[in-house]
């Protein structure tokens, strides 16, 4: 089956971010396809590489990056939600005159149309939120 995943909560504050990751990994292990993972609301905070959780805790962003690297996942951070919350890639940095960027490896920033398109293309859309 082809899944689209929507992550609506940030890392650590809500288990939704962990559940989305675990579901995605389990689906891939069972041979399903993940069409796209879309990060919205505070979910965009899953895509910053600057987080430093305690060493004995899971690093949610790194887990996503590794999974994306391993399976060629499309991890998309919503541009409008990211602008509000300061999640920035190189293009956004230049476009908005910022002095830094913080997007994690394997993530890209794009528009809400990517969420709708994923909903159209996938067999099932799974929403992970509060």
């Amino acid at each position, binding site marked *: 089956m082809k899944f689209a995943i929507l992550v609506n909560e940030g890392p650590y504050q809500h288990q939704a971010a962990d559940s989305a990751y675990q579901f995605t990994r389990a689906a891939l292990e069972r041979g399903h396809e993940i069409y796209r993972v879309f990060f*919205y609301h505070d979910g965009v905070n899953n895509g910053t590489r600057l987080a430093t959780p305690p060493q004995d805790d899971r690093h949610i962003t790194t887990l996503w990056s590794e999974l994306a690297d391993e399976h060629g996942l499309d991890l998309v951070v919503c541009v*409008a939600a990211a602008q*509000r919350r300061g999640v920035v890639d190189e293009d956004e940095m230049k476009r908005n005159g910022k002095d830094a960027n913080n997007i994690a490896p394997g993530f890209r920033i794009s528009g*809400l149309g990517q*969420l*709708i398109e994923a*909903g*159209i293309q996938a067999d099932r859309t799974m*929403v992970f939120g509060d």
Partner: protein
Amino acid sequence: MNEESGKVKRFLYINRRAPYGSIYALESLEVVLIGAAFEQDVSVMFLDDGVYQLKKGQDTTGIGMKNFSPTYKALGDYDINKIYVEKESLEERGLTTDDLLNLTWEDEDDDYEEKPSIRVLSRTDLTDVLENQDVILNF
């Protein structure tokens, strides 16, 4: 993009939270408006505190936030005219349809007559709406 794939799916956006206090309502409306460009079969549902999103006479001057409620009136212009409101959620909050924004759409097939978009349904009847969807996004 749906022109390429030719797919039309039934999208339902469910709104369950008050318009202010969290950003879910505002960012949900942004998804609905962007999604309208994809020419899918769209419904929007308001449950629980989400019914406050459609309350008329919203005034946000005291909280320093933008009152985005006028934007709901644009939904009809995007051919989004299936707006479901849960009857019990209104009653539990002492609200009636008179307290809600007057949301309308123009029916091209009926000499552009202006028709109401809001449909108040019971909890039981809304389950039928839910069952008939392809994609449900819950905010």
